[in-house]
């Protein structure tokens, strides 16, 4: 049977993608940020998953205002890196895992979460920046990501976004779905976005290190307390776009300890301000069996 072996949490700032693509990673501004992912890149090589279930949000890329799904699962064979207005990022096509993705869709809908099934979509920096941070740039002679990826897009653009509690419960449902998949494969679940940031208005540039520290603490050690945080607290304390942190709770809800198992092992915890407008947080949790 398939099992979830680890969860990875990371911000997904577009400027990080630009810094990588334009070769700026060694500049003094960016160096401390990328250094925080050195461990994660090595860890990915040592703990290569068969599939990554990647929770992210679309930033008005695949979904315009024509259709706004709250939860969308990508079931396609592949997903093209999107042109977000600056031209597409020079990164590999994202190969999906249609078989596992449709299995998860069926199981999760039967557990009363209404997913939108997406057979065609481009993926933006929300998905490709975490891959770049954790996998590095694939070599030209083997230009692909290390494994298939199932994109799972959450609406955090138009309010109201799903609550932290709902995301946490959804993570539990996704876990059940993955555990009933017959193949013996090793799945990572990633939660991306955040941490504190606001991209709009006179309050643009808001950063709240104390909120981020407490959130990270709760996420790791008391995830139910993190799930209890209300929308308005994210907006007021972490900025209007800090609400992306609800996506981390989907990944956290899929871990063993909140489903009757052992507490996870914390392998990495990192925090840096700023990347462009944003506080960057990153953590790796390994399930214990």
């Amino acid at each position, binding site marked *: 049977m398939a099992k979830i072996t680890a969860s990875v949490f990371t911000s997904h700032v577009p400027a990080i993608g630009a810094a990588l693509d334009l070769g700026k990673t060694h500049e003094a501004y960016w160096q401390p940020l990328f250094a925080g992912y050195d461990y994660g890149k090595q860890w990915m090589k040592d703990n290569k998953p068969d599939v990554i279930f990647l929770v992210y949000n679309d930033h008005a890329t695949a979904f315009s205002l024509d259709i706004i799904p709250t939860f969308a699962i990508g079931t396609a064979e592949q997903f093209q890196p999107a042109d977000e207005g600056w031209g597409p990022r020079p990164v590999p096509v994202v190969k999906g895992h249609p078989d596992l993705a449709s299995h998860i869709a069926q199981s999760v809908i039967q557990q009363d979460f209404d997913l939108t099934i997406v057979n065609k979509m481009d993926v933006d920096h929300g998905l490709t920046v975490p891959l770049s941070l954790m996998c590095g740039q694939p070599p030209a002679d083997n230009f692909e990501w290390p494994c298939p990826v199932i994109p799972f897009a959450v609406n955090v653009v138009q309010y109201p976004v799903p609550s932290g509690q709902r995301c946490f419960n959804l993570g539990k449902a996704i876990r059940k779905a993955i555990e009933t998949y017959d193949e013996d494969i090793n799945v990572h679940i990633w939660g991306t976005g955040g941490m504190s940031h606001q991209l709009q*208005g006179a309050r643009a540039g808001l*950063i709240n290190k104390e909120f981020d520290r407490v959130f990270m603490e709760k996420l790791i050690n008391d995830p139910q307390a993190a799930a209890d945080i209300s929308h308005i607290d994210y907006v007021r304390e972490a900025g209007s776009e800090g609400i992306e942190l609800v996506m981390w709770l989907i990944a956290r809800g899929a871990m063993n300890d909140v489903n009757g198992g052992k507490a996870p092992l914390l392998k990495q915890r990192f925090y840096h301000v700023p990347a462009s407008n944003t506080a960057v947080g990153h953590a790796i949790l390994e399930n214990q069996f």
Partner: protein
Amino acid sequence: MALDKPYLDVPGTIIFDAEQSRKGYWINQFCMSLMKAENRERFKANERAYLDEWAMSEEQKQAVMARDLNWCMRTGGNIYFLAKIGATDGKSFQQMAGSMTGMTEEEYRNMMIGGGRSVEGNRYVGENGSAQAQNQPQGSAGKKAN
């Protein structure tokens, strides 16, 4: 019964809710069109003519041509959509966000390097933090403009 909108007392912030989304449908859909290189070229060649192809209000068109992102947002624009205009102009997200504060690019960048804007005084309308109405514009870019 009116909907619960607990976020209306957060200073310097417009939450993109269903009402804003309804109001901003066309300005945001116009922005989406800029994800195609050929549309970016057509827009740059003649902004007014390109905007006139969309069912936007005159105010929305003026706000776009003025590149006033706060104004765009008041008319229903959302920052992730409006970012396509910035991308078309070759602007980074930091330049776009900074432009909404009245700071110069350098002032805003320095604020971020210094740890960002503090939440103190910026949680509720009526406090006295940097994002409050009585403290606008915040930087020399905005002061020059006024």
